[in-house]
């Protein structure tokens, strides 16, 4: 079966002053429909970069990222934008940018774009999505910029779900200050993904945020370690030897 998302030997480098740093190196994994894949990693380990590659927001330097069998690199910019507004949803929990004075329901409805829907239909779907994440119609009329951090995260989830994606990418869900809210949000994510047979790829600095994952992976030095043996490449980072290490390897020492 063709996976929803696949990474095949993906590498990504970024300039760092006069040199380059390798953020991802030979990364391979798959996300199947209805599967929850969790990626744990500390700060600056490349997990958000991996998610942006999965969303087609950035392109890999090596290897291939495919969505439903099609390489993202082969799509035009417009096709990738359409993908991000449809079958694939990207939710960066720290990235909250409503328009000034926009109501919650309009903020969710706006993400539907101009897909031939009337404003009334878009709002109706937005209210449905808000209901799905446990926000009432009353909170839909509130200004989006008046919400608490926990409510914002739920609205972002509603905004992602309203387009009925096949794959949901979530960057750092552990932003809610209240631990009870977090637990409920994690459960909601799992349940919605399971009910809708969505693929779910969540990255977090907290392994507890990935509870219930079907596949758990960790990332460090640009490479993955996974609970799945198959399909995972765990290369050792290849760096030039330090002068001290090279000296210690000389014969006779």
């Amino acid at each position, binding site marked *: 079966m063709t996976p929803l998302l696949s990474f095949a030997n993906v590498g990504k480098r970024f300039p760092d002053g006069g040199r380059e740093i390798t953020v991802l190196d030979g990364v391979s994994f798959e996300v199947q429909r209805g599967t929850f894949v969790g990626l*744990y990693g*500390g700060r600056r380990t490349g997990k958000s970069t991996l998610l942006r590659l999965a969303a087609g927001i950035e392109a890999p330097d090596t290897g291939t990222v495919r969505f439903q069998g099609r390489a993202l690199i082969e799509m035009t910019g417009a096709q990738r934008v359409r993908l991000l507004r449809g079958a694939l949803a990207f939710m960066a929990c720290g990235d909250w940018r409503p328009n000034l004075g926009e109501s919650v329901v309009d903020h969710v409805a706006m993400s539907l774009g101009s897909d031939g829907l009337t404003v009334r239909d878009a709002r109706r779907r937005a209210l449905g999505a808000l209901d799905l994440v446990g926000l009432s119609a009353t909170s839909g009329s509130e200004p989006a910029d008046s919400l608490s951090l926990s409510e914002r995260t739920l609205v972002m989830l509603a905004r992602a779900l309203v387009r009925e994606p096949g794959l949901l990418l979530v960057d750092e869900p552990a932003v809610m200050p209240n*631990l*009870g809210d977090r*637990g*409920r*949000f*994690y*459960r*909601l994510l*799992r349940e919605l993904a399971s009910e809708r047979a969505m693929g779910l790829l969540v990255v977090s600095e*907290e*392994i*507890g945020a*990935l*509870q*219930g*994952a079907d596949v*758990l*992976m*960790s990332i*460090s*030095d640009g490479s993955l*370690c*996974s*609970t799945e043996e198959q399909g995972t490449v*765990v290369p*050792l*980072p*290849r*760096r*030039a*030897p*330090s002068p*001290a*290490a*090279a000296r*210690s*390897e000389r014969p006779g020492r």
Partner: protein
Amino acid sequence: MTMARATTSTRRWMQGASTPLRGALLGLALERPGHGGDLASRLVARLGDTWRIDTNDVYRLLDQLVADGLLDAHEEPRRENRRRTRMVYRPTDQAESAMTAWMETLLPREPVRLGLHAKLAVARDQDAPRLLVALLEYERECLRLAQLVAPESGTQQRSWAALVMDCTRDAVWGQLQTDIDWAARTRRRINERMPVQSR
């Protein structure tokens, strides 16, 4: 039939590496008496699979609690077959105060004795590739253990039992996360020192 019961101070039973498990079993028996299998399955459900509790060990620990005078063991007929019996464990009069004493006692921190620490401590230069593999496998094992932890219920109403269960899960996740970070950091350190050709 009642097994022999030894009198004991409320604190003397809190000795040895198995004290946490005996304390947890005592707490479960205080919540509700049960037979060995019942207490073992409740213990696993409460502490999680990451504790890797052996049912045979549970019977041994229950016997210790009986010997310490904190539990009574009676043979009682099985519900499904009255002609057959099984041992049911009930708390004694001393159990409640022993439990309170355990809650008040700061138990010594268990020693950090990860097998990998010992290997690292004496590893030779040429063992570096083997250590990298062992560390990666250790990281994978931590991820697998994290998968075994049952997710939080995430319900709105939080009972005391749900709260303490969540805190137990949190402890396991915290420990595994620390171990994963350590394994990754150690791999990086070894990698940074290793020449490319020997990897």
